[in-house]
């Protein structure tokens, strides 16, 4: 029987997917591409990026269970965020080759660089996901399993990286959830069938050419 944490992870993915509202895309365990394409929609400031959610580790503390009751599984669920951004500026001036110098200076001074925009999007993405996970209505992470507690214990950003002319930013967070595991016990081993042995008629060979007649035991069924 599969352990409860598997169901909890699947339910947590479904919970985030159900609350996307065009702000992000929630993915289960899968390899992401190396490009920022999936984390960026041109001209869509509402879309913040992607979040990948999957099982990272389980701790089973000593004295975590009783002889007959559930065992506590301290499940670490990884959240991996990815966002991407372009710089922003007043393109009516910057792409106009006949723009007045004074307007160009003003427009260039107001350009927001992509790293800053990506950083802001990442914080908004994390805030959105944090509020969903920590909403009291989601204390079981959308699962029917009776989770004892859940909390987000860490949020850390990586360095921004340029892909082509777009800046990508990744970050990670960890959800810890106390999941009770019911012991279903080991499956009953299959009973061996009764064998009939014939010790008289076994004939075989070996590389030495020696007579090895009756050298072994033959199982006849």
């Amino acid at each position, binding site marked *: 029987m599969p352990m409860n944490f598997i169901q909890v992870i699947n339910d947590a993915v479904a919970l985030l997917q159900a609350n996307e509202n065009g702000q992000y895309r929630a993915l289960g365990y899968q390899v992401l591409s*190396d490009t920022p394409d999936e984390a960026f929609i*041109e001209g869509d400031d509402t879309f913040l990026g992607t979040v990948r959610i999957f099982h990272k580790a389980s701790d089973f503390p000593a004295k975590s269970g009783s002889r007959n009751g559930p065992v506590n599984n301290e499940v670490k669920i990884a959240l991996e965020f990815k966002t991407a951004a372009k*710089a922003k500026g007043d393109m009516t001036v910057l792409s106009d080759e006949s723009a007045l110098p004074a307007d160009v*200076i003003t427009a260039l001074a107001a350009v927001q660089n992509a790293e800053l925009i990506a950083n802001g999007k990442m914080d908004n993405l994390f805030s959105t996901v944090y509020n969903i996970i920590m909403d009291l209505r989601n204390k079981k992470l959308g699962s029917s399993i009776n989770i004892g507690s859940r909390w987000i214990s860490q949020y850390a950003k990586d360095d*921004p990286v*340029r892909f*082509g002319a777009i800046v990508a930013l*990744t970050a990670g967070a960890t959800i810890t959830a106390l999941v009770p595991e019911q012991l279903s016990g080991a499956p009953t081993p299959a009973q061996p069938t009764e064998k009939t042995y014939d010790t008289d008629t076994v004939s075989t060979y070996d590389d030495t050419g020696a007579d090895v007649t009756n050298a072994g035991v033959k199982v006849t069924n």
Partner: protein
Amino acid sequence: MGNLRIEAESDLGEMLESDFGQQIFFKSPNTGNTFDVQGRFDLYPSRENPDTGQMIIIANASVSVRASTMPEIPKAGEKWAIRAQPTPVENAPFEDFVMTPDQAPEEATRMGWITIFLQRIEQS
């Protein structure tokens, strides 16, 4: 025989501005002036993967120009607007970029060849 460095810089002009050349527009944040020079849009490889930290090749967009043709040299921390044709076909559209503010052009390391790293820009 003339000075080799001067000849190399002159050869650089042949590489960047003759048959390989393309028009690149710059807008200066200091004067507000627009000027264009011949240069080359390119993808400059670096190696990193933000997901895993593994070494892979990623192409960074850049333009390369000869310093001696530039009326003004971009510096780290400045925001320049740059228009170039990323696609190397005839009548390809010009696209808008800004200079990556924290990355200095690689002046004086390549015989007068400056590489300017670019960020895409969209309407704010």
